Every structure is written in C-alpha cells, then in structure tokens.
C-alpha cells in the first residue's frame, strides 16, 4: 500500500531550503505530512536491511506481507520529519497523487495547497472527535464495524458524527491524495453515474 512509487523531490534535496528555492514537492510536502499521520496508510514498508535501525528508533514493527512499521510515525513533528536524514527509504520514495498531479502539470501548486488545507481541516475535525490515544488506522476499523444496537441515543449520535467526519476525510483523501496505483481507503456503495456521464451539459 505504502509502495515504491519513485523518487520524490523531497528525497533528492535532503534538507530545508528557503521557500523560493524549494521544489514543488518540498513546498507541498512541508505543508502537508498527511502520509506520515496514518490518515492515508496503516503501514510503511521497510527494506530488510533497515529493520534493525527501525527497531533502534523504536518504530512499531509490523509485517503485512512485507516488513514495515506502523503509522502514524512518531518522528513527524509539525509537518516535518525529525529524522529526515536517516528516514526509511520508503519515506523518500513515496509520491501521493496530489504531488504527482502537480509535478505532471495537471494541477497548479496553489490548487494542490488548497486541497492540503481542506484535507488538514477535515483531519482536524476527525482528530477532535477521537480519543487522544486512537490512531487513524484504528479509527478506520470503526467504519467496518456494525453499529451497536444497544447504544444510547447520545452514544449513537456521537459515533455517527465521528463516522461521518471520518468517511468525509477518507473520501477526500481517496479522491485527491491516494495514488491511482494504490488501494482506496473506502469502498463506496456505487451511485448510478449515468446522470454524471455526458448527457447533462451545464449551461
């Protein structure tokens, strides 16, 4: 999921530069950091030779077909990686759809930054509804659970607010951030798309 998707500009630069000199990738990534939070992925892949070092860093090691560590990454500090020069290779390689679209010239950097602002606002709304110790990968599991029929009205209302906020965030991330090569966060129930496919032209 958190795959080998190429080399990002962020990885090539290896440091912090004045804004005017930053590459598109750095300008976007340093405002975002969502790929490290667990909002986009549960897990980041490690190369076998990186495992001892990752263990030494105290990362929570997991195996999901391949070795890796659980997200969120504890070394993300205010949108920046606090172990940047020593970060796992996958962190430098990963390119989200938004970054890819900017680099391909499909959308302007300003538009991409607006998507980042919106996504982070949605992220903050979910975070505010979650218990402090609950991570986003844990929260997403909630969406797969059936509703508890024995909940009180108040509990149900609170849970539905959380589910809606989380669903909204996931839909937004799937649409703008998840790379087309990656699996989506949510499986949506399909809506008949014929209304949206060509017959209706806006005046």
């Amino acid at each position, binding site marked *: 999921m958190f795959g080998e998707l190429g080399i990002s500009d962020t990885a090539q630069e290896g440091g912090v530069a004045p804004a005017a000199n930053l590459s598109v990738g750095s300008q976007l990534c340093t405002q975002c950091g969502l790929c490290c939070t667990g909002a986009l992925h549960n897990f980041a892949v490690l190369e076998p030779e990186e495992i001892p070092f990752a263990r030494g860093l105290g990362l929570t090691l997991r195996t999901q077909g391949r070795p890796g560590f659980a997200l969120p990454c504890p070394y993300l500090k205010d949108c920046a990686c606090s172990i940047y020069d020593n970060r796992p290779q996958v962190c430098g390689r990963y390119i989200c759809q938004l970054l890819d679209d900017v680099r391909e010239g499909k959308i302007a950097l300003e538009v991409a930054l607006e998507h980042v602002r919106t996504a982070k606002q949605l992220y903050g709304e979910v975070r505010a509804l979650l218990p402090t110790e609950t991570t986003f990968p844990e929260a997403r599991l909630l*969406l797969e*659970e059936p509703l508890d029929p024995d909940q009180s009205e108040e509990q149900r209302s609170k849970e539905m607010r959380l589910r809606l906020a989380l669903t909204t965030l996931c*839909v937004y991330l799937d649409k703008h951030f998840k790379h087309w090569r990656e699996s989506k966060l949510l499986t949506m129930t399909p809506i008949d*798309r*014929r*209304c*949206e496919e060509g*017959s*209706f032209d806006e005046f």
Partner: protein
Amino acid sequence: MSSELYRRSERVLFSSIGDDIVALHVENGQCYGMESVTVAVWNLLAEPTDIPTICSRLHEIYDVEPDICRADVERLVSQFRTEGLVETVGGR
C-alpha cells in the same frame, strides 16, 4: 413512480466537501459519494419533490434531452429508494 413525492431520509447523514457530497446511512453504515447532477438531485430532495419537478429544475441548470433526463432521474431516485437514502412521502 413519477407522481409520488420523495424526500431525503432522516436516517442519512451527509456533508459537503466542495461541490461533492458524502452521505452515510445511519443504520447500515454504508457510505456514498455524490457529484455534479447527483448532488443537484440530492439537494432538490431536501423537500418533498416529485420526478417532474426535479427534471424541471434540472432543465434550468443543464442542457439535456427531456427523455434522457427523466430516465436518468427515475433511475437515480429508484436507487436512492433502494438504498434507503430517500423515502416516499405521498403523492400529488
């Protein structure tokens, strides 16, 4: 079907993100993403509305053949009903 009035179900929560809508069914947890014309239909279903009224309002916004519009809206509302997103609230 066309003379019946439909309205969004109270068992559905939804939120807007930009021009899109995300809807969540309270009882089964199913989620739905809506865009463009589907959003327009969904917004019209805030009040009890029939198919001809929906089509009439869509004709004000979109250039679309009447027969195609009606067929597409009937299909969409039918799916909304099947999914429990809208309810029948009577007829004219």
